[in-house]
């Protein structure tokens, strides 16, 4: 008897599982270590500026932004949001920030510093200090400043220059950004030393910085392989694997090995024409933060032949840069962090796409990964991940004849994202994609 196998939708990478398991294991180990008295810092995603420094100092870092997503998915965010509301924080603020503020108020005002018993995954213990960041959104430093109402710990807001695309090419501009970055990080190191009462091990920082750069280089190369048709790796694998490179979660040597394994597996798929979904009809780009709680939605789209071949600029590693001759690790870290932002500037300037750091990459993605459509996910309370989306949509249709489908959601109010509604829009959007495919052909594009 022939056993009817369930139709496969997304063909997940085998190498993703051990990588993801490492990330999860590291997280739980880190919580255990903190509970046993190891100092912890609350950090914001800072695009590499501060993380290698804390890692080299062997400090555990928890990211309330990520914890906000966990709290939302586990259904405990509501009580923290209500609390933040009662404390007088405007409800339109970033949902993750409100979750954290409500959480901090519960932990510090009600429980005298004890972790709330309902907090999932061991909760977030009181930090030694807060490492915020000026990158990407105002919430990142104002939110940690606001935590001062509940915790007597200092905040270090990491400066992160955001140049204009045109201005970046003014002579001497880059050097000035470097000067700011390096001096700032040097002072940050001194601050961290004071906070933990021990000196930086500079050799260790040197090694950490190199590993961070190498991990991200390999990770970049993995994603380059996704230009192949059919695309061998789906966005779901990207999102599962990215924390090890973006947050430096886990031991970096382990991560390097695991990303190399992933590279081999993806390459192998490319050589054998194995796609991430069985029948790739539409190659898609996704922007920006995924609906973490409804990822199964992508399986439904995969059944329709939608393969997500590239995604979320804000989570992608910087375009590789040879930093082997930069001897000062702080300089190397600064250059690497800046590269995340400015790596696309030369291209953007050439094409006169001035619409911002987060917008241009989508033009490149769609062109080089040969996408048929973009799925945009604007979020009510995360404006930084949404602001550029109308512009992106405009730019893609105008310059490349590639249409976008916009589906609204939110980071904490999960009811806002309606997968059924979204799926109902899929079919008519396929017709739109077909139409533009013809338009592209006529206009001489090669996909």
């Amino acid at each position, binding site marked *: 008897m022939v056993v009817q196998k369930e139709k496969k939708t997304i063909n997940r990478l085998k190498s993703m599982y051990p990588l993801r398991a490492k990330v999860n294991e590291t997280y739980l180990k880190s919580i255990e270590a903190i509970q046993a008295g190891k100092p912890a810092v609350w950090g914001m995603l800072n695009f590499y500026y501060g993380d290698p420094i804390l890692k080299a100092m062997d400090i555990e870092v928890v990211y309330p932004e990520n914890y906000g997503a966990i709290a939302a998915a586990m259904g405990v965010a509501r009580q923290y949001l209500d609390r933040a509301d009662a404390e007088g924080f*405007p409800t339109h*603020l970033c949902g993750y920030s409100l979750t954290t503020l409500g959480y901090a108020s519960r932990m510090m005002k009600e429980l005298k510093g004890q972790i709330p018993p309902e907090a999932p995954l061991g909760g977030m213990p009181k930090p030694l200090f807060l490492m915020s960041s000026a990158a990407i959104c105002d919430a990142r430093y104002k939110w940690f*400043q606001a935590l001062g109402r509940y915790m007597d710990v200092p905040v270090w807001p990491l400066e992160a220059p*955001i140049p204009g695309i045109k201005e970046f090419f*003014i002579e*001497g*501009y880059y050097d000035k950004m470097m000067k700011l970055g390096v001096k700032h990080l040097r002072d940050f190191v001194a601050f961290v030393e004071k906070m933990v009462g021990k000196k930086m091990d500079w050799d260790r920082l040197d090694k950490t910085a190199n590993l961070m750069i190498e991990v991200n280089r390999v990770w970049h190369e993995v994603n380059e392989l996704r230009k192949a048709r059919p695309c061998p790796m789906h966005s779901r694998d990207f999102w599962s694997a990215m924390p090890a490179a973006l947050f430096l979660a886990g031991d970096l040597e382990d991560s390097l090995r695991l990303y190399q394994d992933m590279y081999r597996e993806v390459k192998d798929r490319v050589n054998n024409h194995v796609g991430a979904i069985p029948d790739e009809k539409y190659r898609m780009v996704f922007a920006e933060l995924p609906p973490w709680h409804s990822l199964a939605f992508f399986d439904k789209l995969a059944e329709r032949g939608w393969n997500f071949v590239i995604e979320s600029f804000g989570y992608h590693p910087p375009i590789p840069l040879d930093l082997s001759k930069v001897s000062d690790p702080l300089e190397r870290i600064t250059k690497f962090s800046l590269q995340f932002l400015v790596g696309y500037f030369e291209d953007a300037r050439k094409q006169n796409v001035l619409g911002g750091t987060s917008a241009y990459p989508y033009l490149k993605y769609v062109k080089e990964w040969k996408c048929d459509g973009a799925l945009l996910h604007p979020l*009510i309370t995360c*404006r930084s991940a*949404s602001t550029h989306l109308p512009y992106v949509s405009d730019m893609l249709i105008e310059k490349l004849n590639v249409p976008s489908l916009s589906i609204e959601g939110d980071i904490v109010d999960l009811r806002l994202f309606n997968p059924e509604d979204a799926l109902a829009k899929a079919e008519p959007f396929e017709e739109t994609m077909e139409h533009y495919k013809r338009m592209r052909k006529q206009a001489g594009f090669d996909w």
Partner: protein
Amino acid sequence: MSDKNKGLNKAREIYLDSSRRAKELKAADKKIIGYPCVYVPVEMLTALDLVPYRTCADMKEPVTEADRALPHSFCPVMRNCLDCALKGKNDFLDGMVAIHSCDPQEKTARIWESYTHYPYFHFIDMPITVRPEALEYFKGQLNDFRKTLEAFTGKKLSADKLEAAIKSHNQQRALVRELYELTKSSPPHVSGTEIVQVVKALTSLPVAEGNNLLTETIGEVKKRAARPEKKSARLLIWSSTLDDTDIMQVFEAKANVVMNESCGGVRAYRGEVKLTADRLEGLADYYLNEITCARTFRQAALGETRKDYGRDLQSRFGYLKGAIKDWKINGVVMLLVRYCDPFAFEIPSLKDYLNSIGVPSTYIEYDYTTGALAPMRTRVEAFIETISQ
């Protein structure tokens, strides 16, 4: 009877048609440079004989065009500003200078530059801390700004010209403070609504004309017999921007607004640019350190191992205490524009601070549309009733 072309009347006329003078100047071959935020160092424009013109939002204008470029849940002031630009209301500009004072300013600048075609467009990046390396970086940004302005005008920004411009703008700041001295009395000599008109006029005129207007206005106000009616409350309004008389009148129907702590009021005029040997240093220091806006990160002492909340509040909001005492303010309104993150995060802490110095406060949020005025009125009346008892 006061002269229609002088003082308060003139300010009202300019308020109602703020681009008229700029267009006249343009017809007389002057170059007009727009700027959306008071963090832009206008002294550098003045020194090069460029006319700085603040591209304000217009609350009465329904946003239609900006929808294609910005999402709905986004600072409505910047959406409105951009909308005006996309409708061609600023097409007379020769250029535009935007600055990274907050995230929406930065994001809007990119889109503005992409969708419009002024001969000149420059973006100034701005750090968030007041640390020495941040100040140094910001000075570098001003130096780059200088280079692009010089290239655009074909003129050198001479030290003498910059010094003269700094002096004129400092004089303007001093005159605005002098005008605010006239709100100390009870009833005040000049209303909050009139000051909104004056400040908006100042940002639409060359500095010398603005200074004349201020001198006339101060003289007129000091002499006039009819003062604004005395109301039961004296308010300070703390906001990102309060630049519309309709909003102000919601408050002034029931109270005297004696301090408008926003960039439509006193914020850009409280301090003074120091004439340092390196002129750009004085400018960088003033704009980064002296303007007290929520966008800049301050805490009691960065690098301490513990934070003291009381001192932290003092470092963030201490500048309000003197005004509250000297202007005998008995109520503070925290007027928040929806989706304005830098100010929104401050609300509970500012309330803590105001409680600590014993002044009642309330928080009102609105979306920068005329539709928001009616509910705002109800909130204001309730607050004033509470504090007047």
